[in-house]
């Protein structure tokens, strides 16, 4: 833990700015993700609020220097509380022509360009389809351009240490990091320490990176090029202990916490798939928490393993994305019929089919709600920020365990890889979600003998008793055929089937009684209400703030529980003259609330593999307001 001592504040001639969006772009081989990560951590330690957006190609390695091979990392640092990685970056660091070509149009007009001039040779210009050299064809006139021969300077710094030229080249991302760290007054210690232990094993690499980083930093100090530096003051985050967290890590930790709070061992069945794999990776590290992970042969087996584990008294979990979600429908439907707790976690990505594996989307709400044959209702909940993934995991587990039902938890690629500072919760404040296994007979026959009826429900929750193997006298059989209410024996009678279909539906619907009232953010008396779910939270939050700062009135309801819908949602929505529903799909939640409440909600759709920008939502709110005015 480093205490915040504002080392560089002393340094004079620094201009204070309230926030800055910086985008690091280069070839997949240039280590931009690492660079962005480090800059983020340094800023976090410095006390800024921040939000990040990593983007990288689906190919393992697209051809070096090609536009497809561009990998970038955008970070938004601020002295006030923010939620989005920012719309148009103010600074673009481009390590090669392809990166410039790919990301220039995102840079805000008049923004700052930091270019590695060494790479602007014919070969690389060709690969980026440049016919003329942007460095001198005037096409960059609209920007503040900082030209730095990073490769050369890095080599000059590293080679004297005995580093081979080829290896020295690999350190140039640290040169860039050093330069930007100087320009935006980032403390250097943390980064240097990090370099030291990250590359402890390979001393030459360590030295080379260190040298490159300092060379970049000093280059900023010494050259005219850079002009004066900027400083984004620490944000006034509530006091407390913080860490920087991505959605997938938060989700994995949330699952560990959920198992801990449920006093159940955790068994994960999973099959690798982008962008969900990292949850499998993270969980497989924590075996000392009693976490069992099985890399299954496919998604069907992964889900089946979760069902088997649930029957055996574990918190059974399966994680996936894209086509994997479709493959889990069969086993999930079994879990609905067996009425066993199980978590199906879907890190949504672009579809259909293999789609856009590395891009974000939120188009799996339909399959989560309706993607099972027959009447097979189950709860669906969605996380809305990287850190919220931690709590969403616990809430999903709470519902699954209490109601003995599979629960689908939706996250997405943007939350999965995006990061933010997170004020650590006190583990003791986490809810107790434990459950008692059934150990006693619950039914008496006419002759007075007693037996165990696996489908004799709790009158309130309608949950069936959970008796696990190893419990004497409670042996029972469950299966996917329709069963008699109570005894659980196979039963095809018309009346019983109708009863069971309604009981299963009522159990899920009843969960609505177990949800907190919805929070209407913004202006309760506004004409326009934004209804959101999932990762649109960040952009909506920023847009609502801006609108209100500009004196506009707007309300905002963000759903975590998508099935059942909160009981008060209908009344709330009916209060407004215009309801807009921004979604990274073609309007899936919108269609659902329209059917549910006959409210003329309007879909605001974006399906580009990217999150909404605050501006896009702000404009949608604008339009909704004008629409209302026109009506009146």
């Amino acid at each position, binding site marked *: 833990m480093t205490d915040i001592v504002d080392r560089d504040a002393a340094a004079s001639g620094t201009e204070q700015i309230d926030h800055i969006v910086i985008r690091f772009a280069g070839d997949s081989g240039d280590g931009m993700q690492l660079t962005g990560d480090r800059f983020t951590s340094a800023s976090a330690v410095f006390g800024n609020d921040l939000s990040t957006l990593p983007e990288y190609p689906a190919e393992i390695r697209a051809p070096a220097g090609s536009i497809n091979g561009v990998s970038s990392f955008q970070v938004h640092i601020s002295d006030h509380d923010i939620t989005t990685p920012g719309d148009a970056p103010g600074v673009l660091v481009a390590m090669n022509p392809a990166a410039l070509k790919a990301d220039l149009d995102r840079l805000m007009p008049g923004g700052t360009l930091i270019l590695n001039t060494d790479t602007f040779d014919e070969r690389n210009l060709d690969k980026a389809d440049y016919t003329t050299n942007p460095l001198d064809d005037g096409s960059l006139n609209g920007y503040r351009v900082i030209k730095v021969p990073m490769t050369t300077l890095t080599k000059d710094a590293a080679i004297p240490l005995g580093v081979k030229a080829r290896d020295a080249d690999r350190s140039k991302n640290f040169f860039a990091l050093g330069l930007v760290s100087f320009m935006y007054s980032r403390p250097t210690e943390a980064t240097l320490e990090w370099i030291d232990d990250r590359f402890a094993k390979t001393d030459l690499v360590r030295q080379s990176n260190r040298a490159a980083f300092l060379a970049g930093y000093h280059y900023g100090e010494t050259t005219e090029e850079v002009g004066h530096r900027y400083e984004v003051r620490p944000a006034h985050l509530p006091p407390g*202990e913080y860490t920087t967290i991505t959605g997938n890590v938060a989700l994995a930790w949330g699952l560990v916490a959920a198992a801990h709070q449920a006093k159940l061992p955790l068994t994960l069945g999973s099959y690798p798939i982008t962008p969900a794999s990292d949850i499998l990776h993270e969980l497989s590290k924590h075996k*000392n928490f*009693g976490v069992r992970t099985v890399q299954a042969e496919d998604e069907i087996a992964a889900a089946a*393993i979760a069902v*088997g584990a649930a029957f055996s008294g574990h918190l059974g979990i399966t994680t996936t994305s894209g086509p994997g979600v479709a493959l889990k429908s069969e086993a999930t439907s079994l879990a609905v019929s067996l009425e066993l707790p199980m978590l199906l976690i879907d890190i949504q990505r672009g579809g259909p089919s293999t789609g856009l594996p590395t891009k974000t989307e939120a188009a799996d709400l339909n399959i989560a709600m309706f993607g099972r044959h027959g009447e097979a209702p189950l709860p669906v909940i969605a996380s809305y920020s990287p850190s919220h993934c931690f709590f969403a995991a616990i809430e999903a587990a709470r519902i699954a365990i209490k109601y003995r039902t599979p629960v689908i938890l939706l996250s997405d690629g943007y939350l999965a890889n995006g990061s933010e500072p997170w004020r650590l919760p006190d*583990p003791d404040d986490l809810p107790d979600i434990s459950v008692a296994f059934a150990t006693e007979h619950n039914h008496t026959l006419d002759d007075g003998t007693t037996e165990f009826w696996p489908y004799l429900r709790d009158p309130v929750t309608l949950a069936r008793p959970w008796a696990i193997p*190893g419990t004497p006298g409670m*042996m029972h*059989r469950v299966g996917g055929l329709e069963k008699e209410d109570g005894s659980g024996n196979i039963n095809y009678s018309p009346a019983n089937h109708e009863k069971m279909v309604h009981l299963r539906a009522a159990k899920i619907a009843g969960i609505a009684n177990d949800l907190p009232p919805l929070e209407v953010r913004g202006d309760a008396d506004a004409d326009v209400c934004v209804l959101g779910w999932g990762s649109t939270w960040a952009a909506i939050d920023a847009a609502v703030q801006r609108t209100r700062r500009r004196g506009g009135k707007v309300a905002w309801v963000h759903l975590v529980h998508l099935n059942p819908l909160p009981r008060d949602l209908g009344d709330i929505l009916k209060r407004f003259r215009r309801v807009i529903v921004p979604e990274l799909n073609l309007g899936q939640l919108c269609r659902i609330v329209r059917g549910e409440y006959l409210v003329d909600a309007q879909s605001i759709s974006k399906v580009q593999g990217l999150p909404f920008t605050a501006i896009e939502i702000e404009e949608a709110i604008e339009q909704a307001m004008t629409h209302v005015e026109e009506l009146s």
Partner: protein
Amino acid sequence: MTDTTVRLTTKKDWTSDQEVRWCPGCGDYGILLAVQMLMPDLGVAPENTVFVSGIGCSSRFPYYMSAYGIHSIHGRAPAIATGVAVARPDLDVWVITGDGDALSIGGNHFIHALRRNVNMTILLFNNRIYGLTKGQYSPTSEVGKITKSSPFGSIDPPFNPLAVALGAEASFVARTHDLDRKHMIETFRAAHDHRGASFVEIFQNCNVFNDGAFDDITGREQRPKMMIDLKHGEPIRFGPDRERGVVMGADGQLRLVDVGDVGEDAILVHDAHRHDPSLAFALARLSNDDHSPTPFGVFRSIERPDYGTAVGAQLAAASDKKGPGNLADLLRSNGSWTVTADM
């Protein structure tokens, strides 16, 4: 295991209250009886036993056992059982499946459960037909078979279930049939006592849709000359007077011979514990139809770590090394910093 496992049980303790619903004369009855008679001998308790099945006539089996049971979905029993066995290495896990359930839709889970050596005893009721769906050919039906879905005769060459299992690294592989209760019980016992994935193919007669499929081999009068009883460490001989035997040629081909012609010493000695599965494979392929001498008994039984135990060992090792998990530490594990009030 809880101490209840030493409590003695009787066949009755293993028989559920559900009335058995197979066709009269179905071979499944005999298999059920054999299992119910065996269980008390195993010294295990019903509450520590789980039967997992897929879908099919055979997969109704768990309902008839007074133990924990899951009548799951078609073909997925080995995967669901993997979840049970990984979560609870303390339990006795049995998988009941059919030739369609295990080898058609369930083929992938079947071979992976065997490869991982997950601790479960798999009983495959092979009747060479889809019974429950009323008689389509299965992956073990012979070429040319006329069924509802192959009115002009099936053109799919069948799997040899033992060969599939051996190709998939199975550590225990055996074969028995529904007409010999004693042999079934002995084979099931060996399969149960083997730690890891045990696979037993049971020739089972479906008297409604594929009656008499195995008569040429298991028919009372056929048995002596058609059934080759495999015993570890013993020369592989058969025939009414054990006058026939099996030899391995230098060309790597097994042959059936008259013991008289080659002399006793030339007869191949069965080695079920050999790590290399090639011999077991060759024996499995000794006959590839239901009309020539066919080996029964334990083809292969080797020791290797079972999956659930290995998973548990990694957990134990991790706890020994890092100590039991602590949430607060976990949340700090990627580094943290403090924001103080006075800012």
